[in-house]
Structures are given as C-alpha cells and as structure tokens.
C-alpha cells in the first residue's frame, strides 16, 4: 500500500509523468521565470524521451526554454521574453533558433501572456487590455495562415476593437485565452492530500496551472496533511486541479527555488560557455541530460560541494554571500 493513500493515483515517476501526459505536438506552459523555479527535472526527462514538435507558450522563460529549444523539442513558440539574467541576456539556443529560422514563433508581452493564461483560467474566451497599442507586437504576426488553423493556435493573434462602454474613440486590444494541454510547475511543497504550496513569487504559475488541461507538479517535499491544512490561506492549488505529482528534490536546478536553494552560477556559467557552439552544446546534452538516466544521477554529477554552496538560508530564501559572477 502507498504511504500516501490520498494521492496514490497521482504520485508517479518523472518517466511516467512524461510518457503518460506529454505527447508529440503537445502545447506546454512551463512555470517559473528566467533564473527561478523552472521545472528542470521534468524538462530534462522530456528531452530524454525525445518528445518533439512541442508548442511552447511562455511569458519570460530562461533555462527551461533554452534546453527544450536546444534539444530540438520545440516546433512552435509564443513568447514574451527569452533570457536568463546575467548568464544569458538573451537565451542562447533560443536566439540561434530564431536567427536560424528553425522554429515558428510569435511575440507577445509579459502582461499579455499572463492575461491570456488568466482568461483561460477564468473560462473567458478572451481578455481586454490597453497594453501594446501602437507597437509592432500588434503589427507583425509570426504565425502563417496555415498555422492559425491548427489545434490550440488562436485563429487571430489579437483583435483591436472600439470600447463599447465608451462613446468616445477608445481602442482596446482583445487577446485570445490560452488553455495549454499541459502545465509543468515546480513547487516547494505538496501535501500528502495533494494540496500544492508555492513559496516566494508565483509569477504566472497559478494562472498557467488553472488554464491547462493537465497539470504536472514536481516538488521539493511531500508534507503531511496536518501541516499543509493548518494554514490553508498559504496554499496555491487544490489537489483536484493536479494530475501528476512527482517528488524531485532540487528539481529546479540550476535555477533557484526560494527558501530551498539559489540558482547555480557555476553551472549556468558552464552552460553559457558551451551553449553557443553546436558541437559543445550537443556534448553538454550528452553529458548532463542523455548521459544520466535520472535527476538523482544528474545531481551526483553536480556534486555536494556545489549544492551546499547554493543551499538557501531558509529565512532569507537565498544563499547569502554566494559568488554569483
């Protein structure tokens, strides 16, 4: 019998979570933001299982985005920002893929993408905003007419209408809702009743999860129901919105996980050095992704010394004094 009877049907391995829920052509939203809480462990597993033709829908993504694009898993991209702080002012494989014309892409802004997830979560078909009026974001469409006919692609990038509640000339942008096939979220805690708690900033993770057909949550710890229900004001998602739960300590490495660990400057600098060169990048994937069959093995390669360095001060939430150059 499972030690977690309430979530025994949802608790699974990374391998099973990916093979059950992520398909060729899936539309995927990944949680986190640039250097923090990217669901790296499950992204590495997607790469290992060679899932192709992913339609990625992002606001600001960093390391997760870059690995998926670099490993040729992504066919189509809706994005506001591809960057990883000082370690990659523009994400390296993302930049190469767009300059090389090897992926379909379309630009939005962060608020626009977040509002699109929110609309999907609310069950609203679209949402209105003033953001973007006059910009080339509303001028240039990245997707062709053919792409616009495909599943999970909005029929129009956006629509501008006259505000029907204002008699004066007043233009408003309507943005189509997003309802991805799968949202991948890395959280600090999942209760043994399936309740999810994210600590620190939530970015657009909650809107992404609520808008998705399937939600996979990887987590640092599974904690008792008695703990997670003592103060339910702090919780983020109810169990019934979550389809798969995978316990993966350090599952966001080399990005940060507030109150557990900081981002890993050594690994991100290593990545920065190799990612721009196709051969070196393939060697990186061989060594760090294909060459390890689990996140535990990957962490063994990182090593305890490095992991101790990035261990967060639990009160501050980050590794004070960490050499971040």
């Amino acid at each position, binding site marked *: 019998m499972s030690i977690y009877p309430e979530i025994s049907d949802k608790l699974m391995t990374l391998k099973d979570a990916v093979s059950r829920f992520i398909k060729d052509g899936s539309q995927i939203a990944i949680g986190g933001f640039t250097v923090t809480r990217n669901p790296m462990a499950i992204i590495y597993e997607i790469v290992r299982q060679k899932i192709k033709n992913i339609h990625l829908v992002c606001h600001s993504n960093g390391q997760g985005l870059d690995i998926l694009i670099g490993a040729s898993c992504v066919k189509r991209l809706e994005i506001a920002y591809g960057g990883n*702080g000082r370690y990659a002012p523009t994400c390296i494989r993302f930049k190469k893929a767009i300059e090389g014309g090897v992926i379909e892409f379309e630009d939005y802004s962060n608020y626009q993408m977040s509002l699109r997830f929110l609309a999907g979560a609310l069950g609203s078909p679209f949402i209105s905003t003033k*953001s973007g*009026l006059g910009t080339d974001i509303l001028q240039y469409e990245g997707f062709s007419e053919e792409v616009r006919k495909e599943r999970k692609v909005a029929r129009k990038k956006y629509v501008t209408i006259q505000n029907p509640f204002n008699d004066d000339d007043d233009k408003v942008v309507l943005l189509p809702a997003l309802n991805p096939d799968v949202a991948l979220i890395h959280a600090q805690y999942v209760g043994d009743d399936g309740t999810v708690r994210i600590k620190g900033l939530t*970015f657009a993770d909650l*809107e992404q999860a609520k808008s998705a057909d399937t939600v996979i949550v990887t987590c640092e710890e599974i904690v008792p129901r008695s703990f997670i229900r003592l103060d339910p004001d702090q919780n983020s998602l109810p169990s019934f919105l979550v389809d798969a739960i995978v316990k993966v300590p350090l599952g966001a490495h080399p990005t940060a996980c507030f*109150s557990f660990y900081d981002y890993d400057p050594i690994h991100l600098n290593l990545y920065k050095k190799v990612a721009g060169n196709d051969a070196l990048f393939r060697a990186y994937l061989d060594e760090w992704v294909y060459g390890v069959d689990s996140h535990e093995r990957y962490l063994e390669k990182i090593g305890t010394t490095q992991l101790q360095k990035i261990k967060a001060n639990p009160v501050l939430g*980050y590794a004070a004094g960490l050499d971040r150059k």
Partner: protein
Amino acid sequence: MANYTDNEMMAINAGRLIKNNDIVFAGTGVSMLAAAAAKKIYAPKAIIFFETGGIDPSLEEIPMAVADPRVMSGTCLNSGLIDAFSIVGHRKLHTIAFLGAAQIDTYGNLNTTSLGNYMRPKTRFPGSGGACDVASLASGVITFMQHEKRRFVEKLDYLTSVGWYTGGDSRSRLGLVRGGATAVVTNLGVMKFDEDTKKMYLAEYYPGVSKERVIENTGFDLDVSRAGESPAPSREELRILREEVDPQNLIL
C-alpha cells in the same frame, strides 16, 4: 580619467530623477542599481518593485534578475505578474519604470526584440518581457542606453515599447491614457523630451563629455541647445553605491 564608471554615473543620474512616493519598476542590470541607489540615496520613501511580483524587497544583496530570490526576500508582498502589471498601470499611483533597450528613436520608442527582418532576424534579443506593458501603462519611463549611433536610430527595426510614438499627441490618440518617455540616461548624458514635439533633446552631458561627442554618437538630429553639464557624483553617492548597493561588485 574620472574616478567612477559609466554604470555608476548612469545609476546615479537615473536615481536623481526618482522622487519620494514614486513606485519604481526595476529591470535587470544597471536599472537594478539605479533603483537601489534611488531608494538608498535620493528617495527613501520610493517603493521598488519587480514585474515578477516582488514588492519593496530588503535588497540586502543586489538581484541579478527580476526573478532572483533576492527580490522575494523581506518584501511587503510576494505576488505575481498579473498583480505587478496592474500596479504599473494603477491610476492612483505614480509609477516610473526603468528599462533598457537595443535601439531607441527620437520619440523614445524602444526595440528589445530584433534587428533585421522580424521573421528571420539578423540579431534576436530577448523580446518585450514586461517592457511593452510598462511603456504602455506606467506614468513614465526612464531608459538606459549605451550611447551609440547604431542604437540611437532614425527608425527602429521593431517597435517593442511605445514612447511618444510619432510625437505630439499621437501617444494619447493611440488610446494610452498616460505615461510616455521621461528620460534617457546613457554613458554620455541625460536626454529628455520636448513638451510639445515630444522629440528627444540633450538635457545634461557628463563632466568630460562634449555636446559634439553626444551628437556624433546619435543617429538622428538631437537638439543640444538646452544642455548643461551634470554635477559629478559626490563621494557619498559613490560610497553608498559601492558599499551598500553593490558591495559584491556584480554590476558596477
């Protein structure tokens, strides 16, 4: 040679533009420095916040990205993007955004998307992120630029974030109810915008920089007739910047 770096001069000059009770939207890099400097030197009652949702963090260490765990520490509130952008646009707040860009035009419109053809660019940059949003919704935008001809251009390759659009009242005619480009802070000086035409002009040049050098490095006609020399950073400004804002010397 001056005893301060370009980044220090830029952070100090941008910081000087912030007032108490401004709500300051900070990005990465020098904008992070400028925001922290503003709070620690010029406007202690200003609030610094990030598009990621971190509001008023303690900033005991300088964050290296807007999602750095350091923007979530000691805050008054940890929220998310939706909340952050609704703060940027909130009618009752005076919100000032710090942005960077690859290209800027005479009306303060910005490009952070790409050079060349959009679909098959010569150079791809990260994209809008929240820049387009804050340029649309904030009360004002202060942009950090390296002052180079190829960056100060007649026509942007891609207009990611709207400044004064095509000048005059064109911004409000777009449907944007407030905001616009407030200033541009570069390694050579500080640019502002004419009240009527909304064209950029040189307001200040740094000690040791000539008007001519600014003109040479600007790709469009720039009015320099109103410019004066900026005061050099004081010892105290530099001390706070170096010892309190970025003691690890990560960005300076």
